[in-house]
């Protein structure tokens, strides 16, 4: 009899304790959002590289070099925002390089070939990005084709369209507003970083604290359950691709400003770096769990690695090896953790 009574009272105590917690800790939403994303790996890798570079190449920390890293990181970060949404919803977009290029060509053509006003041309570029995303999203949801097949094919389609229009030609000589977005600084901080960080903050708030972000996690985590609970799984899946398309177009305009040029054959390696940043940042490759903050760290890590490889005097191609290794390490760490949890 006694043990039963003990159990009852301890259960009551536990109830009171669980409900009684009313401090800010109990009412604050989890900082990273509805899912727990492990950030230890990217933080540790960043720390190791920072310490290593401080010893091996002290001018790694020169302001000019940090700015160079920031420029790379901000483009990866920006595209990573869209990719985090796509992957969290259980998709993948392999066509971002081509969307970026095609929307840049559309923007440049509107401005240069058709003589449209700057703001209208920007709108044209963003619309083309959104339409590319819509194309991906509709094919995936309506025809029920696998995401990677659709976007792998549309990478070719979009890039082909850009090449058909622009050929080997180059657009250059863009208005000052555009070059300012790509190269300008405010109080020493590069504009692309300011834009990317602003979008990271906004996206994180939606992703982690808004109904839309929460449902996005559910759409990727358990589509059957989400559908039963009245959530439009198809709507969300199409939506993330459109969002990704718009983000890629924004990236295209920033990159145009940075290079003061649009080349139809550009932006090829950006896909690898973006997916790597998202995965290293703790977003689950198969959906349901993601973090914009993790992607921010991952983007910084990837840009740092690229930079460190060059600084240490290796050929630039080694950056691919390093980036690939980082992805493999991360996935290996997570899958070990998962197998242990299942045991």
């Amino acid at each position, binding site marked *: 009899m006694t043990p039963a009574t003990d159990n009852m009272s301890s259960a009551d105590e536990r109830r009171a304790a*669980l409900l009684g917690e009313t401090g800010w800790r109990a009412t604050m939403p989890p900082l990273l959002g509805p899912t727990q994303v492990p950030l230890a790996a990217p933080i540790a890798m960043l720390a190791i590289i920072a310490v290593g570079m401080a010893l091996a190449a002290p001018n790694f920390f020169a302001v000019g070099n940090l700015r160079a890293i920031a420029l790379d990181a901000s483009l990866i970060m920006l595209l990573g925002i869209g990719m985090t949404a796509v992957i969290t919803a259980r998709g993948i977009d392999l066509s971002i390089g081509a969307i970026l290029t095609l929307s840049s060509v559309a923007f440049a053509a509107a401005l240069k070939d058709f003589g449209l006003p700057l703001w209208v041309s920007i709108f044209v570029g963003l619309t083309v990005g959104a339409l590319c995303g819509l194309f991906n999203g509709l094919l995936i949801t309506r025809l029920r084709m696998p995401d990677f097949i659709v976007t792998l094919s549309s990478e070719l389609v979009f890039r082909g369209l850009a090449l058909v229009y622009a050929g080997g030609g180059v657009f250059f000589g863009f208005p000052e507003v555009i070059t300012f977005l790509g190269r300008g600084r405010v109080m020493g901080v590069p504009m692309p970083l300011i834009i990317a960080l602003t979008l990271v903050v906004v996206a994180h708030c939606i992703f982690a*604290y*808004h109904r*839309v972000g929460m449902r996005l996690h559910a759409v990727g985590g358990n589509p059957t*359950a989400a559908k*039963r609970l009245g959530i439009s799984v198809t709507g969300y899946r199409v939506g993330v691709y459109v969002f990704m398309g718009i983000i890629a177009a924004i990236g295209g305009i920033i990159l145009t400003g940075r290079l003061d040029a649009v080349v139809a054959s550009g932006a090829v390696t950006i896909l690898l770096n973006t997916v790597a940043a998202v995965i290293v940042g703790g977003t689950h490759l198969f959906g349901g769990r993601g973090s914009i903050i993790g992607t921010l760290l991952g983007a910084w890590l990837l840009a740092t690695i690229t930079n460190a490889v060059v600084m240490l005097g290796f050929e630039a191609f080694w950056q691919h090896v390093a980036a690939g290794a980082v992805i493999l390490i991360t996935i290996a760490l997570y899958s070990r953790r998962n197998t242990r949890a299942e045991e």
Partner: protein
Amino acid sequence: MSVVLSGIAKSYGAVKAIEDIDLTVEAGEVVGVLGDNGAGKSTLMKILAGATAPDAGTIMVDGETYNFANSSAARDAGIAMLYQDLALCDDMSVVHNIFLGREITNRFGFLRYGAMRKRAQEIVNSFSVRPFDVRTPSGHLSGGQRQVSALARTTAFGSRYIILDEPTSALSPSARDEVLAIVRDLADQGIGIIMVSHDLGHVRKVCDRVAILHLGRMAGIRNMAETSQDEIISLIVQGHA
């Protein structure tokens, strides 16, 4: 306050899954649905939950006649079905899972997490099982706790009738007892429950009445207090007592 099914029929091609079923579930009572494999129990539950459309018959909820187009329509009428699996997002906390689709937000759609957590914890605490922290990711819960979370979701959504299709079949004995205890808790809170089970012991433990299906027809409805194990078994096996 009750759900009234009358004259419900459903065929799959040449197979008459159920025929001419009448059944009433009052608020606050637990009705067990028994029957052999293929007797039509799941079919009947899916019709009541709006997941399948009947060929004939009507469903009345609290005096109003419904023709559910889908399970959302049934849920809006106050009827929820608890799915055995595929119900929770493992990476999300119990709080998020319970309110998924009916989030408490401010007018801009931002989550009011504090309010959701408090309500979720209250619901879990209201069940007579060992309470757990609703901030736990669902993937870390035991089978019983997952079932508790899914039941808590139906309560949070304000369902007045809950359908359970073999809620205990995949659980350990202690988790089974927990789920049965919650079924009783919910009935005592005024919710009408209809529970499919193959386990006579469980049915005896929590049900006020039992309905027995045999080859798609209603073989009999009995008050638990006025029937015997033998009578129930022969209704299941032969279709008559």
